[in-house]
């Protein structure tokens, strides 16, 4: 998946949690600093980083809060360092100001959100209630994060490598949006070593002291006439260019009459439901967006143009469905089934909604 793959040759599988795969993937990607504050259900990430990073010559800091974590991330990013923070929903809310600053001053960094049930303190179970926050911008102003949504432990690993690559490619914060399912489950993961981060990464903008060159400035304040508008135009152009990174898994879509759209853990649970229904002869397929921003809208639009119907399934009260509807608008609409945060979803829960949508308009 990442563009700088170098296989080590020994595809030995290790059996680890998604959270651990996140940490392993980050280390493989050359992550040198971790900043974070404990919160369930992602504590395996800081815990693993706290013993692994110092050995890897990096720095682990337990920050005083998520506000501080995100700002430490901003600082390390300004120094051109591959750095990571992770948290879960309430903690991510506290990072919104810093995230907006990072986007505004074009600083790369990776933020993992192991989404839990909300709103408020909610619970510690899985949820997809933070889609809007991640994709539309929980912070202020017009900005976008690149948002990757792993559904397997292997993807947790792979997407961390991809996340760091994308962050530095676009000089933009990247969010990896999982949930308590993918974080807590264990699967075999094949670790792989991407090519080492080139020493030149960020060399033309990172802060390191202005020896022999003009001082550099990384900022988001643009007071001069038209300067902020210019920065916003630049950012919008960048976000448009990111569209090239959109990615999704397609499963049995070719002959499908109904396309289920679901991401992350819900995507794989939906896959089980689809397998059951296929066994009964129902022509249903799955599109599982792996990038939530950029959203794989063109793919969906193409399927809509083929006359397929749509059902969006989420573990929330209806968020990504808006992007699905916007993607295929003018052609067809998407039905929606929202599994309530606070209840554990299983593939059986999705059977009736899918059959409904197959029968429906």
């Amino acid at each position, binding site marked *: 998946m990442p563009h700088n793959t170098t296989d080590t040759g020994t595809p030995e599988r290790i*059996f680890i949690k998604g959270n651990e795969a996140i940490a392993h993937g980050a280390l493989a990607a050359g992550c040198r600093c971790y900043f974070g504050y404990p919160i369930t259900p992602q504590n395996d990430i800081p815990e693993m980083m706290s013993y692994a990073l110092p050995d890897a010559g990096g720095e682990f800091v337990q920050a005083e809060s998520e506000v501080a974590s995100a700002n430490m991330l901003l600082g390390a990013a300004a120094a051109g360092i591959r750095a990571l923070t992770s948290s879960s929903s309430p903690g991510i809310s506290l990072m919104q100001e810093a995230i907006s600053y990072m986007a505004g001053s074009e600083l790369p960094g990776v933020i993992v959100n192991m989404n839990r049930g909300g709103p408020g303190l909610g619970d*510690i179970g899985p949820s997809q209630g933070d889609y809007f926050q991640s994709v539309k911008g929980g912070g202020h102003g017009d900005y976008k994060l690149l948002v990757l949504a792993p559904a397997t432990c292997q993807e947790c690993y792979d997407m961390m490598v991809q996340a760091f690559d994308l962050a530095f490619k676009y000089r933009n914060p990247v969010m990896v949006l999982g949930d308590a399912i993918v974080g807590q489950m264990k699967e075999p993961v094949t670790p792989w070593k991407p090519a080492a981060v080139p020493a030149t990464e960020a060399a033309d903008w990172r802060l390191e002291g202005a020896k022999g060159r003009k001082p550099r400035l990384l900022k988001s304040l643009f007071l001069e006439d038209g300067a902020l508008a210019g920065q916003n135009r630049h950012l919008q152009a960048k976000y448009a260019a990111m569209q090239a990174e959109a990615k999704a898994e397609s499963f049995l879509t070719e002959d499908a009459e109904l396309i289920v759209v679901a991401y992350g853990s819900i995507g794989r649970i939906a896959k089980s*439901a689809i397998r059951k229904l296929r066994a009964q002869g129902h022509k249903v397929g799955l599109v599982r967006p792996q990038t939530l921003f950029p959203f794989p809208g063109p793919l969906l639009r193409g399927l809509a143009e083929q006359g397929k119907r749509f059902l969006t399934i989420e573990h929330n009260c209806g968020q990504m469905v808006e992007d699905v509807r916007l993607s295929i608008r003018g052609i067809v609409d998407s039905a929606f089934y929202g599994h309530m945060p606070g209840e*554990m979803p299983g593939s059986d829960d999705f059977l009736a909604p899918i059959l409904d949508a197959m029968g429906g308009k």
Partner: protein
Amino acid sequence: MALYQDVIMAGFGGQGVMLIGNLLAYAGMNAGLNVTYIPVYGPEMRGGTANCTVVVSDEDIGSPIIQRPKSLIVMNQPSLDKFQPRLEDGGVQVLNSSLVDASQAEARVRTVAVPANDIADKLGNTKMANMVALGAYVRATGVVDLEVVKKSLTSVISAHYSHLIPKNAEALQAGFDHAG
């Protein structure tokens, strides 16, 4: 779906169901299959009971969470009450008949009753009842080769306790044999 099996294993906190869940998952992995393992997660964790779900398949695995499992390992009475109703018709359950009233087993499912505590006791340590139950489960379902399970013990028992591995292998075998 050449090969697909899922199982919920449940018992008291101290009965080691997480351990055999991990062990079965490792065995599946070592047999070259896809596996998922997920512990119950949430407030239940603090209570006295524990359970986990393992899926083994030669295809990629969809849901790691199973509402109507194909099989069960039931180590205590509350777990029978909770999970038997969810078991698929014709599914397999291994009951620890040392602690579970096997007469409550429903006819619509296939039940393998194993006095796991007693067998383990005889082998010298009641704590290995979990291994006995897993051995029986492997025999009952044939999901993986028992030898692979035994070899996988090193993955779940830390080096510090490696001297216990032979005993655990014995317990696996005893369960396997009992279910025969």
